[in-house]
C-alpha cells in the first residue's frame, strides 16, 4: 500500500470522478438532472407506496377525500386477508409457479444446449417456431383448451395451469438459455469429453455451473410471468385451484369494495416477486435482454 497513489479516482471524492465527464452530471445542470431523476422515480413509485400505506389503514381512512396522510397503522387488514382464506390461493400460486418453472428449466436446458451447438439453418427455423408460439394470442386457444380440459376432467386443477404456464414460458427460456450456452468456449466441453464424461454428466458437472447466472435470470423471468398470470387462471380455475390474482379480484367483488383490505391483499400478492426482483436486479436485466445482447 502506498500513500501516494497515482490513481486519483480511488483517493478522491465523487466530485473528482465526475470531472472527466463534464458533459453529464457536473455542476448545476447535473444537480438539476439529479433532482429531476428523483422526482420521476418517486412519481413512478408513488402508486405502490400509496397502496402499501393504505394496507395499514382502517377502511374509513383509506377511502377519504382529502387523502389521509397521518394515521395509526393497523394490521387488521392483513389479518382479514389471511383469515379470508388467502392461504389456499397462495399455496396454489406457489405450486403452479414453482412446478412450471422447474419444468421449463428441465425442458429448456437440453433443448437450448442442442440449439446452441447446431448453428445450421434448421436452428433458426426451430427458434423462429418457438418464438412464434409467443405471438399466438392466448385468447385464440383458450376456447379449445377450456373444452378439452372439461372433457379430460382437469378443469379447476393446478396441473392444468402448470402445463399451460410451462408452455407460456418455454419459448422465452429456450431463447435465453441458448445465448448463455453460446458464450461457453468449446475447450471446456472438449476437456470434459477427454475425461470421459457423457452428455448428462457434462451438463450436470460442467455446463450447468457455468450457465448458472443465466439459469437464474431465466428462472426469475419465468417466476414473474407465472406468478402474475391472470387470464388462464380466471377461465380455467374455480374454487379449488384459483391462484393469487383471482383472490385479489374476489376481494373486490364479493361484498363491495374494501379499499384497505384490497390494498393489503395486493401488497401481499406482489411482495414475493417484488423482493425477488429488487434483490436480483442484475439477473433481471440479463433476463430481459434475453442474454442475446452483451
Amino acid at each position, binding site marked *: 500500500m502506498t500513500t501516494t497513489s497515482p490513481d486519483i479516482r480511488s483517493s478522491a471524492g465523487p466530485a473528482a470522478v465526475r470531472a472527466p465527464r463534464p458533459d*453529464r452530471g457536473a455542476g448545476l445542470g447535473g444537480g438539476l438532472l439529479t433532482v429531476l431523476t428523483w422526482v420521476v422515480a418517486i412519481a413512478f413509485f408513488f*402508486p405502490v407506496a400509496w397502496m402499501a400505506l393504505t394496507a395499514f389503514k382502517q377502511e374509513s381512512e383509506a377511502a377519504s377525500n382529502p387523502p389521509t396522510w397521518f394515521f395509526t397503522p393497523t394490521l387488521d387488514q392483513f389479518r382479514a386477508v389471511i383469515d379470508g382464506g388467502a392461504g389456499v390461493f397462495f399455496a396454489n400460486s406457489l405450486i403452479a409457479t414453482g412446478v412450471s418453472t422447474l419444468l421449463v428449466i428441465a425442458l429448456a436446458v437440453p433443448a437450448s444446449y442442442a440449439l446452441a451447438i447446431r448453428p445450421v439453418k434448421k436452428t433458426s427455423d426451430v427458434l423462429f417456431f418457438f418464438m412464434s408460439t409467443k405471438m399466438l394470442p392466448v385468447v385464440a386457444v383458450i376456447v379449445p383448451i377450456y373444452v378439452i380440459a372439461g372433457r379430460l376432467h382437469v378443469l379447476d386443477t393446478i396441473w392444468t395451469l402448470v402445463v399451460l404456464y410451462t408452455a407460456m414460458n418455454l419459448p422465452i427460456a429456450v431463447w435465453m438459455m441458448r445465448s448463455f450456452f453460446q458464450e461457453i468456449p468449446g475447450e471446456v466441453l472438449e476437456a470434459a469429453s477427454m475425461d470421459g464424461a457423457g452428455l448428462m454428466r457434462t451438463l450436470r458437472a460442467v455446463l450447468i455451473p457455468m450457465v448458472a447466472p443465466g439459469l437464474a435470470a431465466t428462472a426469475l423471468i419465468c417466476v414473474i410471468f407465472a406468478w402474475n398470470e391472470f*387470464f388462464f387462471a380466471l377461465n380455467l380455475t374455480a374454487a379449488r385451484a384459483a391462484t393469487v390474482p383471482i383472490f385479489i379480484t374476489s376481494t373486490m367483488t364479493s361484498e363491495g369494495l374494501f379499499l384497505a383490505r384490497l390494498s393489503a391483499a395486493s*401488497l401481499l400478492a406482489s411482495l414475493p416477486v417484488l423482493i425477488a426482483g429488487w434483490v436480483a436486479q442484475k439477473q433481471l436485466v440479463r433476463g430481459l435482454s434475453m442474454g442475446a445482447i452483451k
Partner: protein
Amino acid sequence: MSTLVEKHQRREAERRANVKTPAQIERGEAWRRRAPLLPALIFTIIVTQVPFLVTIWYSLRSWNLLRPGADRFVGLSNYADLFADSTFRQAAVNSVVFTLGCVLAAMILGIGLALLLDRKFVGQGLARTLLITPFLIMPVAGAMIWSVSMLNPTYGMVNWLIGLVGINPVDWTSTYPVLSILIALVWQWTPFMMLLVLAGLQAQPKDVLEAAQMDGAGWGKTFVSITLPQLRRYIELGVLLGAIYVVNTFDQIYLMTAGGPGTASANLPFYIYQRAFLGFDIGQAAAMGVVVVIATIIVATFALRVIFRSFEQKD
C-alpha cells in the same frame, strides 16, 4: 478458441472411423444431437398447435352453448359475420391504439429515464429500484391501484392532485376509458423498456464517447450519432417483446373498465373473452381468434425479420 461447432464436427469425424456406413452414422448422429431438443419441441407443439387447430375447426361451426343441439358446420359464415361486426372493428382499433400507444410512450419514457439513471449521483441504486417497481407489481394489483386508489372519482389521488390547482374532479375510467388503461399500461411497461435501454447504455464503449467529446461533439450530437445507433438493437428488442405482451393485454381492461362503457375500451382479447365466456358463442369467438392469429403472424413475421437481421449482424 475452438467453438462448440468445431468440437462437434471433430467428434463426428471420429465416429466416422467406425465400421458403419457413413449414411447410417450421419443419421444416428443427427438424431443423437436432436434428441435433447425433442421433449421441448414436442411439448410446445402439442400444447400450442393442437388447440389452435381445434380453434380453426370450431370457427367453421355454429356453436352456442346457450342453444343446445345447434352445433353444426356453417363454413365461413362466422367470418362473414365478423367483418360486419362494428364492435369487432372497434376492438381491433383499440388493440392497435393500446399496443402502439403503450409501446411507443413506454419506450420514449424508458429511454429518457435510462439516460437519467446512467449518471453518477447520490442514491442511484435506490432510484433505479424505485423505478423498476411498477414492472414487478402483479398486473392485477397494478390495475386495482390505478382504477381505485389513483383514478377513483371521489377519493382517487389524481383528482385530489388536480384539485389542488383548481381543476374539477374527473370520472377517469368512464369518461376517458382508453386513456385510463393506457396510463396504467405505460406505468407498468416503462420500467421494462428503461432496464433494456440502460443495459444498452452501459454496454457502450466509453472510449468512443470520450473520443466524440474530444472532437467537440455536443451532448445532443453524440446522442443522435453514436448512442442511438448503438441502442438500436436494444430498442428493437424492447419494442418486439413489449408488443408481444401488450397486444395480449387483458388484466387492466377486465379490471379497470370491463371493456366499457359499452364496448368503448374493449380490445380483441377482451372481446373474444366476452364472446366465449359471457356470450358462450364458441363459433364466433373461435373465428375471431383465427383472424387475430393471422393478423398477428403477418405483423410478427415482419417484426421478427427485423430482430433476426440485427442478431445476425452482431455475429
